[in-house]
C-alpha cells in the first residue's frame, strides 16, 4: 500500500517564490547590465564590457594582489591555527572554551573597529610592514579568518580520534612533525580545505580594512569602476560573484557543511 505524500502547502509556494525572486532578479540585472553597450539605444548584446575587463591592467594587477593576499592569509592561518587546535584537543581541553570565546571577539570588534585600532597601534611601524599590503593587510586578514578557521578546524578535530591517532603514530616511532603532517593533517584535510576556501572568499571581497588603510586591492578597484563606468562594472561584478560562488561551492563540496555555521557570521559587508 502506498502512503500518499503530503502536498506542498500553498503558503510555502508563495514564500519560496518571493524569496527566489528577491535573490535572482539582482543577479539577472547584473548580467543584463554587463551585456549592454555603452552607447544608449543600441540593441542587446555585446561582450565588449568583458573585453574591457580583460584588457585592463589595473584589473590584473589588483586581482593578483588580492589572490596572493588570500594565499598568504591561508598559509599563515593554517600554520597558526592547526597546531594550536590540535594541541588543545590533545592536551589542553580546558583551553577549548577560552579559544571558542576568543573566536567570538571579532563579532564585537568588526573590521571597521579593528582597522581603527590597527592603524593606531602600528602607526609608527616600519614601512615594510605598515606600508605593505602583504604585511599590514595580511596580518589583519588572518584575524578576520580566525573564527571561520577555528569553527571549521574544531569540528574537524572533533570528528576524529586525536588521542588514538597520535598514540598509534608515536608508538610506531614517529616524531611530532611526522605525526602532525602525515597522520593528523590528512585526517582533517576537508575541514582545513573548507576553512581555506572560506578565507579565500573573505579576502577576495574584503573592502573595509583595505579602504581605510588605503591599499588598492580588487574590491577597491571594483568600487572605482562602479563609480566611473556603469556597464564594465556589471561585467566586473559578475566576475566577483563567480569568485565568491566558486570558493563557496568548493567549500560545500569538500566540507559537507562543516563550518557552514561559522561561515554564516561574516564576510565582506
Amino acid at each position, binding site marked *: 500500500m502506498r502512503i500518499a*505524500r503530503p502536498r*506542498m*502547502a500553498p*503558503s*510555502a509556494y508563495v*514564500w*519560496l517564490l518571493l*524569496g527566489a525572486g*528577491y*535573490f535572482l*532578479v*539582482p*543577479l539577472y*540585472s*547584473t548580467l543584463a547590465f554587463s551585456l549592454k553597450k555603452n552607447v544608449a539605444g543600441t540593441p542587446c548584446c555585446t561582450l565588449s564590457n568583458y573585453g574591457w575587463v580583460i584588457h585592463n591592467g589595473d584589473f590584473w594587477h589588483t586581482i593578483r594582489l588580492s589572490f596572493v593576499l588570500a594565499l598568504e592569509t591561508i598559509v599563515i592561518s593554517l600554520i*597558526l591555527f592547526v*597546531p*594550536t587546535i590540535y*594541541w*588543545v584537543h590533545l592536551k589542553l581541553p580546558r583551553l577549548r572554551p577560552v579559544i571558542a570565546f576568543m573566536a*567570538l*571577539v571579532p*563579532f*564585537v*570588534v*568588526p*573590521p*571597521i*573597529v*579593528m582597522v*581603527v*585600532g*590597527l592603524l*593606531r*597601534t602600528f602607526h609608527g611601524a616600519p614601512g615594510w610592514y605598515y606600508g605593505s599590503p602583504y604585511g599590514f593587510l595580511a596580518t589583519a586578514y*588572518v584575524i578576520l579568518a580566525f573564527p571561520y578557521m577555528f569553527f571549521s578546524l574544531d569540528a574537524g578535530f572533533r570528528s576524529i580520534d586525536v588521542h588514538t591517532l597520535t598514540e598509534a603514530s608515536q608508538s610506531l616511532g614517529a616524531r611530532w612533525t611526522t605525526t602532525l603532517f602525515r597522520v593528523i593533517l590528512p585526517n582533517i584535510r576537508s575541514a582545513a580545505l573548507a576553512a581555506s576556501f572560506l578565507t579565500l572568499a*573573505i579576502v577576495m*571581497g574584503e*573592502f*573595509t580594512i583595505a*579602504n*581605510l588603510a588605503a591599499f588598492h586591492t580588487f574590491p577597491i578597484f*571594483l568600487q572605482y569602476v*562602479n563609480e566611473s563606468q556603469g556597464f564594465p562594472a*556589471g561585467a566586473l*561584478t559578475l566576475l*566577483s*560573484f563567480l569568485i565568491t*560562488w566558486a570558493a*563557496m*561551492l568548493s567549500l*560545500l563540496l569538500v566540507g559537507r557543511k562543516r563550518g*557552514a*555555521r561559522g*561561515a*554564516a*557570521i561574516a*564576510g*565582506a*559587508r
Partner: protein
Amino acid sequence: MVTLPFFAYTIAFLFVPAASVMIGAFQDKANHATFSNIRLLFDHPYIDAYWGSIRISLVTAVAGALFGMLIAYAAIREGTPRWIRSVLTTFSGVAANFGGIPLAFAFIATLGPLGVVTTWFRNAGYDYSVRWPHFQLFSERGVELAYMYFQLPLMILVIAPALDGLKREWREAAANLGAKQWQFWRHVGIPVLMPSFLGAFILLFGNSFAAYATAYSLNQGQNIVPILIGAYYTGNVLDNPHIAQALAFGMFVVLALMMVIYIPLQRRAARWAK
C-alpha cells in the same frame, strides 16, 4: 608551548588594537585623558549616526528574521520536496558571504535610475521615482533592501537547524492529545524556537550594524557610524583621530551589549539541538 604563537598573534593583532581603540577614545590630541570625545558622541551629527545605524540594523534584523524564518520553514516543512531545501541552504551559504561592493552594484543595476526593474516599471507606465519619491536606492530604505540580501540567508542558515529540532513526534503527540494547530505553536513550537530566534536576531543586528562596504558603495553620505568612521580616514580631514576612535568604541559597546544577551540565549537554544 605549542599554543604560544597563537596567543601572541591574537594579542598583537586583535587584543592590543582593540584596547588601543578604547584608550584612544579617552584621549585628546595631546594624548591626555579626557571624556570630551565620548561626550561628543551624544551630540550632532554623531548621535544621529548611531540612531541611523541602530534603525537600519533593527529594521533589517526584524525583517530578516521574520522573512528568513518563513522562507526556511517553507523549505523545511513537510510536503516541500527535499531538493528545495538543499538548494536553499547551499544558496544561503553562498549569499550570506556575499555583500559589499558587488552587492551594491547588483542593486544599482536592479533599482538604480537605469536599473532593469526601474526600466520595467517605467515602460509599464509606472515611474516609481515620481510616484513614490520616498523610496530611493540611495536612501535608508534602499540600503535596508540591499542588506536583506545577506540578512535573509544568514537567518535561513542559523534557524534551519532549530526548525529541524521541532520534532514531528511532538506535533503528532500534541495532535493525539487533541491540540489544535495554533495550540501546538503556542505551547510547543514558539517556546522551543524562541531562544534560537532571538539569538539569530542578535546575529543579524550585529551583522548589519558592522556593515560598511555595501552602504559606502550605495551612498557615501549615508549617516551611519561606519561611514562616519571611514570618512575620517579616507577623506583628508583627519584632524582628530580620537573622534574616530571614540566612534569605534561606541560601536564596540553596542556590539558587546548584544553579545552579553546572545551568549545565554545560545546556551538555551543548544538544549534542543540534540
